[in-house]
Structure formats: structure tokens, C-alpha cells
């Protein structure tokens, strides 16, 4: 059992389709401006997340998933040029200036990073970091903020909350650090949580605990969650829908059950086949050939074509993201469902 044991509210089942949309991302693109001009990092990403829903952004390193998240938060590097629309709770936030964007952070969106050790301040106490946020975003007094911070730590399953508030990040274990990070992210009651590989740095038993906690929080607070990961198996367990990215593109989008069980895009299929299966060992794995092309060296047309067994002449032109039977796929030669 997790240490967390807050009483769960009576589950009111609202069908997902009927829920309010929290985040809408439309045709998001992002390039870095450098000496040679613009370097495209992300092109044409669209998805939406409803209340209480977890959407996964899946891909290997360098596919643009993390930078997409920072564009949504409004914390992308200064030399980033961002296009497309980002709508949060009905407000088009991509049209706002940096100051107004910053005001949404914490209050409406919370962020959870991969490495809590470096994502929390090394020389400010845990309590100070939490109360700074609470005081600024919610206008609480110091004592009210401390009280609330202790409650939050308690809620994410941290024992001796008052002591921990006086402590520093280096005094905590990896799992505890990530719990603090989660407490910080939910502290001001956001409607959206963006979690960037929140369990990758953790050991497998701790990973399970943290995933449980995130799921509890999501259900309790009806949070919309954007879950960034490279691990398709976690997606299947944890997320309602999934967006698979490759070389800055969305290549497949749909229900996570469909994508993890019978994907239509050859890349998504490849990702699943590349992981050793749970059953019999001594078979060969089916790797994806080659490596992810580095940013700036994307091929023309379908960016996956050079590594794809199904590629032909047609793949020299860029495919569109089109709705197939179950999922949306960007491929000229999608796999049959169930193949």
C-alpha cells in the first residue's frame, strides 16, 4: 500500500466525452532562431485534454515532446519562435504576453519535472519554496501558507510534513523528492498538470508508487494531465489517450489502448516490438533500423521513411495526419488494425 491514505471522494462517473476541455493545442510549431535562420524543432502538433483525462506525449529523445510541453507552459527558451494556438480553459493563452502567461503558471498549470533533485532549489528549504508559491499565487499569509504546505505534503504521502518543510532537497530520497515536486505542482489548484518523464529517474518500485499517487491526484482533483514519456508500457497503464511523436511530428494519435495494442503507424509498432516481451526470452527482438535523425537533418517527405520497412516512392511527399478506423495516423502505408 502507498503511504497515502486520504479518503477518496465518492466516484461520480461522468463520461469523458461530456467533460469540459481544459487544454487545446492546435497546429503548434516551434523553431529555434539561430545564426543560420530558423531551425524547426516541432511542426504541427495538435491534441486536446479534458478534465480528469490523462494524455500521453510519447517519443524517443529528440522527438520534441519536452519542448512542446515547455511551449504550453510558456517557459520555452527565448530564441524559440512558436506558432499555432494554445487554448487553456477557453482562453487563447498563446496570444498573451509573457507576464500574463507567467500568471497562469502555478495557478492554472502545474509542472512536474523528470529530475526532482535538480528541479528543486538546492539551498532554499522545501517549505520556503512551497510558501513562496502559495503566498504569491493565492495571496496567503506566511502562517496560512505554511499550514497549507504541510497539508499538501501530508496529502502526497510524506510523513513528518512539518520537519520536511524545514529540510532541503538533498536530505530526501528520490521518491520523496518527486512527491514534494508533485505537492508543489498541485499546490495552487491548477486544472492542468504537465508531467515531463516524472518517473524515469526513479527505481521501478518507487516508480509504481509515484504513478499511483499521480493517478490518485488526478481522480481526486479532476486534473487534466499531459504525461510525457518514452515508455509506451507506462502509457498503456496510465493514460486515456496518447500522442506519438517522431522527429517533431505527431505520427499517431488516439486511445492509448488502441495505440499500445494495435498501432497503425510503423514507428509506433516498432517502439512496441523493440521492447523485450514478458513471455519467452530466447527470441530475437525486432529493432527499428537506424537512429532518430538529429534536428536540422530531417528527411523530406515522411520523416520516418529512411527507417521504415514499408517506405516507397510515395513517402517522398509528406503525409497528412488522417483519421483511420481507430486512430489518427500520419502515414501513406498504415498497418491494418490488429496487424
Amino acid at each position, binding site marked *: 500500500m502507498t503511504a497515502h491514505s486520504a479518503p477518496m471522494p465518492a466516484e461520480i462517473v461522468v463520461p469523458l466525452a461530456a467533460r469540459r476541455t481544459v487544454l487545446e493545442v492546435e497546429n503548434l510549431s516551434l523553431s*529555434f532562431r539561430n545564426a543560420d535562420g530558423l*531551425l524547426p*524543432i516541432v511542426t504541427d502538433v495538435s491534441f486536446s485534454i479534458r478534465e480528469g483525462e490523462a494524455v500521453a506525449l510519447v517519443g524517443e*529523445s*529528440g522527438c*520534441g515532446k*519536452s*519542448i512542446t510541453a515547455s511551449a504550453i507552459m510558456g517557459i520555452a527558451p527565448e530564441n524559440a519562435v512558436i506558432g499555432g494556438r494554445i487554448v487553456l480553459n477557453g482562453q487563447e493563452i498563446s496570444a498573451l504576453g509573457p507576464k500574463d502567461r507567467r500568471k497562469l503558471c502555478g495557478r492554472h498549470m502545474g509542472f512536474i519535472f523528470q529530475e526532482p533533485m535538480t528541479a528543486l532549489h538546492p539551498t532554499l528549504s522545501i517549505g520556503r519554496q512551497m510558501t513562496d508559491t502559495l503566498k504569491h499565487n493565492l495571496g496567503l499569509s506566511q502562517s496560512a501558507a505554511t499550514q497549507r504546505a504541510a497539508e499538501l505534503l501530508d496529502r502526497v504521502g510524506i510523513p513528518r510534513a512539518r520537519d520536511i518543510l524545514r529540510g532541503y532537497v538533498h536530505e530526501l530520497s528520490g521518491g520523496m523528492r518527486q512527491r514534494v515536486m508533485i505537492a508543489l505542482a498541485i499546490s495552487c489548484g491548477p486544472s492542468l498538470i504537465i508531467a515531463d518523464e516524472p518517473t524515469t529517474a526513479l527505481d521501478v518500485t518507487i516508480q509504481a508508487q509515484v504513478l499511483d499517487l499521480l493517478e490518485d491526484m488526478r481522480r481526486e482533483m479532476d486534473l487534466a494531465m499531459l504525461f510525457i514519456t518514452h515508455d509506451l508500457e507506462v502509457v498503456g497503464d496510465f493514460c486515456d489517450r496518447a500522442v506519438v511523436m517522431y522527429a517533431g511530428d505527431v505520427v499517431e494519435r488516439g486511445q492509448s489502448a488502441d495505440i499500445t495494442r494495435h498501432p497503425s503507424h510503423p514507428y509506433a509498432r516498432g517502439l512496441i516490438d523493440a521492447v523485450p516481451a514478458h513471455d519467452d526470452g530466447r527470441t530475437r527482438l525486432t*529493432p527499428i*533500423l*537506424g*537512429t532518430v535523425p*538529429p*534536428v*536540422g*537533418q530531417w528527411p523530406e517527405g515522411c520523416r520516418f521513411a*529512411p527507417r521504415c520497412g514499408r517506405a516507397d516512392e510515395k513517402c517522398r511527399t509528406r503525409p497528412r495526419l488522417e483519421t483511420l478506423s481507430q486512430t489518427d495516423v500520419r502515414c501513406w502505408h498504415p498497418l491494418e488494425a490488429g496487424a
Partner: protein
Amino acid sequence: MSVTQATSPDRLTGGDEEVFVTTNKSVWQRLMANPTAVVSIAALVVLSLSAILAPLLAPGNPLKVTPADRFIPPGLEHFFGTDNLGRDMFKMVLHGGRTSLLVGLIVTVISMGIAVVLGAISGFYRQVDVVLMRLVDGLMAFPGIVLATAAAGIMGPSMTTVITSLSIVLIAPSLRIVRGQVLVVRELQMIEAARSVGVPTLRLFTRYILPAVSSPILVQASFIFSAAVLGEAGLSFIGVGIGPKELSWGNALTEARNYISQAPWIVLFPGLALMLTILALNLLGDSLRDVLDPRLARRR
């Protein structure tokens, strides 16, 4: 986000992967593409040449006294003017540079050389390291000039005294850098990998560690050089340097300061030469660091 530094990718195909090749320019080529580096190297070449060729460019004894020519302002006859004894400042600056640069060079070679040997030993033997580092701490915190002043007083001012005391003083920062780098490199997985292969210790040092620490050593050398030039000038200025019979930029300023209101040029030119040399060396060190350590360079 990994943005590779690939400049011109050419593809080698083979096996099931393609090899992306980045044409990597040599350090020298990259240095030559860096305007700061080019300017500083050019300045150093000019300064060295004018020091080496001083007897040709400005023939005659620079210390020759001509009382009739006192305090002539800079002009065509005397480019940098003359001083209180009627000596030609242009000649003094050119010839003074010989001493300053020579002392700087010798001190750099000695202190860096000793630092590399001691740094290597220190990086490998903990007991030696503990003792050496305490010595370095003592030397680092203490002002080198004071030590050199005491040394000069006891050994008598001379070129040897200056070189000895500056070398001792500058070993400390050099050693700290070299040793720090050796400790970093020693922990790299490539060293463990080499040990696991069975590479003997001496080869480990010459083939793995030394090449890896050579870049910071080179960067440090240019800063040590500039510190040595500055140190020599400072010691000579207060009269505990190379002694009155020799000529250096620092020496030239010693007397000049008494005549600053009458003839500011005799203060200006030796100091300017000194500053240019130090500036060029510092800029060279900066640009070397930029070129050799891309991680730091990105910040600039």
C-alpha cells in the same frame, strides 16, 4: 533537446545504421575562425617580433643617458618621447619587452611543467595529494608579491630571483587546475574502461589522461603567462624585481612616476605596452577556452 553541431553531414552506409559524420575542424582552424583569437594572436606576434627584433628596430643602448634630450614629448624624432635622463622611450619600450616576455615565458614553462608532473602524481596518490594541496592552499591565499618581495630582499634583486619567486608563486594556481582536471578525468568511465582492458598505468597517463587535460592546461598556460608578465612588472616597479641594471616595462615605470606631471608620456607608453601584452594573453586564454570547451563557449 540535442542540437548536433553537424556542419556538413555526409553519409556512410553500412550495416543497419547510417553513420552521420560531422566534419570536425582542427583546433587551429576553429581558433582562426574566432575573431578575438585572431586579434590576440596577431597582437602577440607583433609584440614578440618587436621584442626579438628590438636591436634592429631601435639600435643602440636603450639605457644610454643623454641629459640634453630630457623630457622631449613624443614626435617624429622620438616616437614615444624621452624621459628624465634623455633616454628614448620607444627604445626603452621595445627593449624592455624583451625582458618582460622572456621572464613570462620562462616562468610559464617552469611552473606549468612542474604543475603537470606534480598534478599527475597528486591525482594518483592520495597521500601526496593531501600534503600538496595544503601547501597549495597556503601559497594560493598568500599574496605572491609579498613573498617575492621577501625573496628579493634576501636573494638580492635579479632575473634569477624574479623567475624563481614567480615560478614558485604561480605553481600553486597551475597545480590546482591540473590536479583538478586529472581528478575529473580519472573518474571518467573511459579510464575505468582502459583499466579493464589492462592498459598499464604509465600508458594510461600518457595516452588517456594527458591528452584529456591538455586543453585546460593550454588555457591555463596563457593566463599564467599573463600573470607572470604582470608579476615581473609589479616586482620591478617596486624595486625588488630584475634590478636597476636591467630594463623592463615595470622598471621603466619606477622612476617615471616621479615625473608624471611634467612628462606623462614616460608613464603612458611602457604601461600601455604592458597592458596590451596582458590583454592579448587574456583574450587568447578566453578564446582558447571557448574553442576547446564548447560547453563554456555556448554561454558567451
